[in-house]
């Protein structure tokens, strides 16, 4: 790598665009469809420039119809295409819930016809989007066998996981945390690489307790870990990356080492991904656990709009530290 190349850092959003671009170049079955993704390049400019490069047959602006977007993607996937369907905001995936959970997810099982489909979109709060532009819908899909759910926290993973998702033979729901789009970046290695679906990553090694998390909260956890370090608490941070199916071995390895676990997510508490992580720990880490499990999450409310409300609502490093201290002192 030239120093020049090294200097150029890629943002999370650019990494996603690169993944789509490269996969479309590599495989002509790959195409994108969604609202305002062509001429406009997408509400967050994720697909900017793709239309010019690949033309409107492979970069398709659709009517305002989430069920039709996913449905048409499903049909074309059954025909052997590799569609990437954008939800303008992940919140609107609710309108395609039936199509995803009943058609896409169950097709292979029922008929043997796989549906290699990616549904992707921006999720998450912290940008004062209010109740309908800030949701974290990932857990809605973790109870539907046949689906896979992914959420990257870094530019590297965004690119590598999206490539893996596009190449996957089954439907993958790919949640991009919009807070990270332009806030995280790194120098990406050249060449063609993927990040495998189903594998977590240890972001920080630690001995005293494990923070199991994903998405934007990985950065919150790392912040908290730094504060905790100064207090003599050595936290391990595990980025789950794939939320369904979970990397149970990685969870066991970490909790088996630290013996204490915090599950951290931005989504609201009850019925979230954290519940499943907790269940895995309760089932499989009984012998190694030295303290109660703790979930640090948003409270059980819609996402409020006004900044002081949203700040109160969202998990942050301070809340993680409070939980970690309680746990470390247990």
């Amino acid at each position, binding site marked *: 790598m030239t120093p020049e190349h090294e200097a150029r850092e890629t943002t999370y959003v650019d990494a996603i665009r690169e993944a789509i671009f490269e996969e479309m170049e590599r495989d002509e079955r790959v*195409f994108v469809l969604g609202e305002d993704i062509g001429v406009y390049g997408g509400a967050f400019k994720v697909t900017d420039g793709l239309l010019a490069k690949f033309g409107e*047959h*492979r970069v*398709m602006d*659709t*009517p305002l*119809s*989430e*069920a*039709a*977007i*996913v*449905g*048409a*993607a*499903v*049909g*074309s*996937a*059954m*025909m*052997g*295409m590799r*569609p990437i369907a954008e939800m303008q905001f992940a919140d609107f995936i609710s309108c395609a819930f*039936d*199509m995803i959970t*009943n*058609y896409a997810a*169950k*097709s*292979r*099982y*029922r*008929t*043997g*016809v*796989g549906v290699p489909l990616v549904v992707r979109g921006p999720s998450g709060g912290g940008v004062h989007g209010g109740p309908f532009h800030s949701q974290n819908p990932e857990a809605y899909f973790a109870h539907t*066998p*046949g689906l*896979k759910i992914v959420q990257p926290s870094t530019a590297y993973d965004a690119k590598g996981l999206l490539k893996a998702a596009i190449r*996957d*033979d*089954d439907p993958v729901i790919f949640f991009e945390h919009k807070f990270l789009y332009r806030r995280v970046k790194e120098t990406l290695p050249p060449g063609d690489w993927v990040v495998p679906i189903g594998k977590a990553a240890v972001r920080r090694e630690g001995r005293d307790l494990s923070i199991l998390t994903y998405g934007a909260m990985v950065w919150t956890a790392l912040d908290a870990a730094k504060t905790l370090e100064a207090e003599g608490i050595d936290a391990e941070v595990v980025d789950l990356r794939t939320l369904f199916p979970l990397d149970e071995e990685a969870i066991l390895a970490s909790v088996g080492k630290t013996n204490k676990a915090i599950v951290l997510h931005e989504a609201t508490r009850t019925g979230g991904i954290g519940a499943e992580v907790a269940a895995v720990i309760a*089932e*499989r880490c009984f012998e190694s656990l030295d303290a109660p499990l703790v979930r640090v999450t948003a409270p059980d409310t819609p996402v409020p709009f006004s900044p002081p409300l949203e700040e109160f609502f969202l998990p942050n490093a301070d809340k993680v530290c409070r939980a970690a201290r309680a746990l470390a002192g247990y």
Partner: protein
Amino acid sequence: MAELAPEQKLELYRFMRLNRTLEEKLVNLYRQGKVVGGLYRSLGQEATSVGTAYALSKGDIVGPLIRNMGSVLVMGFTARDILAQHMARASSPSAGKDCNLHFGTPDTGMVSAIAMLGALVPVMAGIALGARMQKKSLVAMTYIGDGGTSTGAFHEGANFAAVQKLPLVIVAENNGWAYSTPFRRQTAARSLADRAVAYGMPGETVDGNDVLAVFDAARRAVERARTGGGPTLIEAKTYRMKGHAEHDGQSYVPGEELSEWAARDPLERYARVLLAEGTDPSRLHDIDAEIAARVESDARAVEQSPFPAPESAVRGVYAEGVAEVEPAIVRRRW
């Protein structure tokens, strides 16, 4: 009007008869408790299924609903496939995973419905889209009931297909009822063909009990689709002569309507047409007899065929892997 060779005309008859005889056999099996789950009849609607699907060519793909047994037969699936589905056997196309006509793969010319009505319309639009992207000139055809046209999925799929000018034919089967709900409680529209106006799509109403008229309308729509003219909505006016399913005695259906429509039975009517055109009655009798015998022997064969292996329940969810069955503590022998 459609120009069909005499053999093709007989083939239409054969499919309609097979549709009917097979269903009658299934009723028998149902009463003997040999059909698993419900049984949905298409009595009186055979002309719609058969006539529309018959307008397709090899390579085209159909997305049928549970009352489109005729379409499934036309696409080349056999009585045995359908019997095995209803008896939930290992040899069924879905290997026992799903019921009745819920099966199919694009390469065999058929895409499976799911129970959620309307969902198949966007999916079939996607089939047409995927085919076009691959420069295949195939036509996709799907069905929707009067009830199903009230779903959001139908609307989104039809609108999408029209904007994209996709090679899709939507057959809206207006059989007067959605379960117990009559047409006038389903929509205030005058006809299902009127739904097409909302999509800027050609819409047409055809006598769904006249197989030749149905075929003709479908052929034109298929031709339009194949030549880049985009989707068409065909309303086939017909009548559901039985209850929603076998358990439903349809007490809510006015008797006069039933007898009125019984007089328009599509199979008898078509037989009369064929005979009037000079077909030798023995040809029809032969077909009837052959089908009856064949269905009987197929049913016996399927009855003797095995159920799927229990463990296969956890296979096939993903391209790789098998779902875990036992709780961790049992599985891992802690």
